[in-house]
């Protein structure tokens, strides 16, 4: 009942004082102010995590009702591997939230849990931190392997094309292609992040030194020490 009244307050224009509603949603409302919402059947504060989860579930359902305005809500949790560094009670809360939001929003909700394996969190640890109730609701696992040389070069061409002001014959401009091969070879099998870092640092150094593009293998060799220090990960 309470949650329905709050949703009505959000979507209808009955509640004139938007700031009051905001205060209510963020849990900063005083008792006197709360009385101002009584007329709209909002009688008590949102207390438990479960109140908030139900409210979010209701909100998502309203937004995507019959796919009229929005077709779906997507929540993307980046760096979800940080779950492994939370305290036990926060791990439980996170699991409860995921389970409840999925159960209460039967349609039109898609959740991505983005995980990167780290020294603290390997794939085999997953079961320890994600409860069975959540695991059984996971529909698909997508794994991204380290990029191959060909993949990385394709990615680089695409990325650079977004920033091009005019067309160049060399699609790797401001790099020479053999420089790219050289850096990939020197770095070995590493993540996209690590390759990105090397290339952006090379660009920055070249910018400071006013080096004329395209950047060559010789220029890389000159700055190799700094660049390879950035091997990372």
């Amino acid at each position, binding site marked *: 009942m309470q949650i329905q009244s709050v949703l009505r307050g959000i979507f209808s224009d009955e509640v004139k004082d938007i700031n009051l509603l905001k205060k209510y949603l963020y*849990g*900063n409302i005083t008792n006197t102010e709360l009385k101002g919402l009584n007329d709209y059947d909002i009688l008590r504060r949102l207390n438990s995590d479960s109140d908030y989860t139900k409210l979010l579930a209701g909100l998502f359902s309203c937004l995507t009702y019959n796919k009229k305005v929005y077709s779906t809500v997507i929540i993307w949790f980046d760096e979800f591997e*940080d779950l*492994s*560094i*939370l*305290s*036990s*009670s*926060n*791990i439980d809360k996170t699991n409860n939230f995921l389970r409840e939001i999925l159960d209460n929003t039967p349609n039109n909700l898609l959740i991505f849990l983005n995980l990167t394996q*780290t*020294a*603290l969190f390997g794939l085999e640890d997953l079961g320890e931190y994600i409860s069975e109730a959540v695991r059984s609701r996971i529909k698909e696992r997508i794994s991204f392997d380290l990029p191959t040389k060909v993949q990385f070069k394709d990615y680089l061409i695409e990325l650079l094309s977004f920033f091009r002001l005019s067309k160049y014959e060399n699609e790797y401009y401001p790099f020479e292609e053999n420089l790219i091969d050289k850096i990939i070879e020197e770095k070995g099998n590493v993540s996209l992040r690590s390759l990105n870092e090397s290339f952006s*640092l090379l660009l*920055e*150094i070249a910018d*400071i030194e006013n080096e004329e593009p395209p950047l060559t293998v010789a220029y890389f060799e000159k700055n190799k*020490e*700094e660049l390879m*220090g*950035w*091997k*990372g*990960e």
Partner: protein
Amino acid sequence: MERRMNQITCVLDACSIINLIHIDENDFLLKKLKNIDFYLCEKVFKEVNINVFDKINKIRRNEELNSQVVKARKEEINKKLNQFRSNQMLDYVIKHDLGDDIFDEVRRLTGYTKYNGEFYSAVLALYLSRCKPLKHNSNDFIPTKLYFHTDDYPAKNEFDSFYRYQQIGYIEDTADLLILIYRLDDNFTLRQLDIALNDLFSEYATEVVLLKRKLRNYKKNLPKNLIRDKFFVNNLNLLIIKLENIDFNGIIDIKDGFVMNNSKYGTINKILKTYEPVFELDYTSLNLLNKIKSIREKLETIHKI
């Protein structure tokens, strides 16, 4: 078999007490702690008083915590602090029994130059090992061998030989302390131990991950003069890689390298200073995080016998 009060004596360092206070819920751990005879020195109690609120203040700055929540949490911490107050051993008692120059003597023997909680704890531990009062306010002494619990691994290294050569006892960390109070209490289950270990791990791991992220962001926007500074760039990278790999060996040296040149590296020093506990993890072999991880993996071997 009737169980009698055990003879296990512990001296607790500030970081161990602060960690216990932070990970404890509903006074569960603090109640279990009463199963051992534990002491802390005046200096440690002062350090705890100053630093135990750091965490909540940091969260408050980052997340705009509601002031009522902050107040409630601080009150809760204050209540817990009070439980440690009565276990303080005052400096004047130590001086009374071991002589006024005992602090200088320990300084000479250890070669330690800082006047911090670890130093005063070493004097307290020496005192208890030689003349632990049999009962409160009694003049009867009982020779004791004891445990000093600290999570400050560099300090552990510095004082190890003092505890050994003076046959005072052993230095262990908070993970060991948790296992000990688990073993001494029939109502402390293996599952509860696992939760406590996870929460201790969380205390440090969170700091490590946040620091790593701060440094990564900082690295993305380095001022031009630092990009070409080989010493700086290499050490910053090394520090990030070490945090990434949970390898803390030598991270204090990296930090000190920056601190020595504060005029040039002021910004990074400010960042590192906010994450002081991370540098307590510096250790040559199995560090605290990896240790807790491996304890949890073979938890069954710890069950009470």
